[in-house]
């Protein structure tokens, strides 16, 4: 089976400082791939290449190839707006827009598609249902997205990402700013999302990676030390460093 995304020999630089070294990674379609590793190991940096969001900042550059369905997206021919529609992203802190719950989810719909009012309303409902938040917000669609709780805000952001009909969803520590109960809801949601999307998640939380992911990549100092199915990584790691990290000896 062809990989949904394939990173080939990715190196990344913050100015003169090299943060990623020759990363190779093959991400399977409709699976959850977790990226773990100690702070500063480059896991977020790696994820932020996939939708080229790093390009916001001067002095950050990447070399290598990143194939989405076999096509290199790091080239100059890539339409960046369409790329970011196809690859959605969820951030560490929930980032609802300063507008109503409904408009938050309708925003990417109006941005990317020509739809009638009723079609938009239908799709907003679908997206909110897919993000398991519909029951909580259906009576307050017109109130501000900022008035929701942290966990609800994060699921609202997931609904917003889903509304753009992406193929891949990147999650950069999506539950680290959220309480344990809300985290559980989001983890259940991610397992649901796997049916429709390819999911990549960066997480500090090794239990989380073990609970929900199919594959796990262990990063250390900008290198991918080990990449395998999650069960193997957590029960029978090949590298000493991986074992030390998952057993809590460092990190």
């Amino acid at each position: 089976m062809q990989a949904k995304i394939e990173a080939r020999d990715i190196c990344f630089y913050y100015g003169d400082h090299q943060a990623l070294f020759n990363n190779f990674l093959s991400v399977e379609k409709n699976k959850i791939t977790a990226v773990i590793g100690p702070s500063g190991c480059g896991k977020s940096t790696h994820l932020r290449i996939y939708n080229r969001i790093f390009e916001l900042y001067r002095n950050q550059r990447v070399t290598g190839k990143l194939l989405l369905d076999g096509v290199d997206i790091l080239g100059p021919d890539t339409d960046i707006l369409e790329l970011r529609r196809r690859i959605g992203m969820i951030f560490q802190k929930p980032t609802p827009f300063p507008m109503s719950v409904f408009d938050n989810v309708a925003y990417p719909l109006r941005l990317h598609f020509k739809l009638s009012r009723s079609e938009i309303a239908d799709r907003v409902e679908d997206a909110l249902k897919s993000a398991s938040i519909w029951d909580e917000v259906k009576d307050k669609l017109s109130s501000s997205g900022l008035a929701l709780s942290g966990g609800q805000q994060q699921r609202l952001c997931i609904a917003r990402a889903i509304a753009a009909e992406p193929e891949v969803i990147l999650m950069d520590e999506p539950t680290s700013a959220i309480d344990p109960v809300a985290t559980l809801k989001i983890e259940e949601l991610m397992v649901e999302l796997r049916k429709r999307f390819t999911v990549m998640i960066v997480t500090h939380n090794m239990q989380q990676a073990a609970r929900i992911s199919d594959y796990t990549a262990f990063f250390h100092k900008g290198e991918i030390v080990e990449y395998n199915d999650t069960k193997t990584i957590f029960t029978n790691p090949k590298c000493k460093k991986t074992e030390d990290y998952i057993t809590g000896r460092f990190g």
Partner: protein
Amino acid sequence: MKKKTLFWRKLNDRFHTLFSAASVFIAVTGMILVLYTVVIRGMDAVSLDFFLNSSRPYGVEGGGIANAILGSVMITVFAAVLAIPPAVLAGIFLSEYPDAGRAVAVLRFAANVMMGVPSVLVGLFVYVIIVVPSGHFSGFAASVSLAVIMFPLIMRTTEDMLGMVPNSLRESSLALGMTKMRSILCIVCRSARNGLLTGILLAVARVSGETAPLLFTAMFADAWPSDFFTRPTANMPVLITEYTTNSPFAEMHTAGWGASLVITAAVLAVNIVTRIVFREKNNAG
């Protein structure tokens, strides 16, 4: 190691608390004295006629300040129309396009210099480039001078307010596939909306009391401000200056104080309303 006595540490704490409380008292007393004087001296002038009649020449009884209020409103509103759009866009440029490098540094430096220029110089400048060539004082020239003063104020507050919007909001809107300008105008500015509007209103309140530039540009007229672009235009600050310092008539002194009371109340009202309205919106998120 020798221990500091608790007595001295506590005394020190008391002293500083007392000192800052006394400072607040002095500042507030000054403000109250100003308000008290304006109210006491101006109260007698205020009547219905005062708000409805146009001002009259020296020595003619029964004049009001209606033309000056209207003229001031026209001058200020037109100045706001001239200044706000470019100032906000320039603020966006400063905050959101730091990669432009030199241009940003030059613009920010120019704004800082402009904020330090005495307003009388701005008046003189507009006098030379508009009033002299056109051959007449006008409300329009006054608007231009006030706009010149407002521009850097609004630009810098816009930059500061946008700078307070977290980067994660920019990233998340761009990550949805928005273009940069759309993300700035629809998401970043919207998020900073209250701060932007407050900054604009405070800038308007600040220039609405400017006097020196108006002496060079609007001058004054007892007529209604019907020829905004071509004739001297009545306005509050110049009326107050003229009536209280230049007129020999006691009635006009009182009218000057009355006008001061009106302008103070108006600026106070704008400030209070701004705060109340935006605080409620803030709480609602």
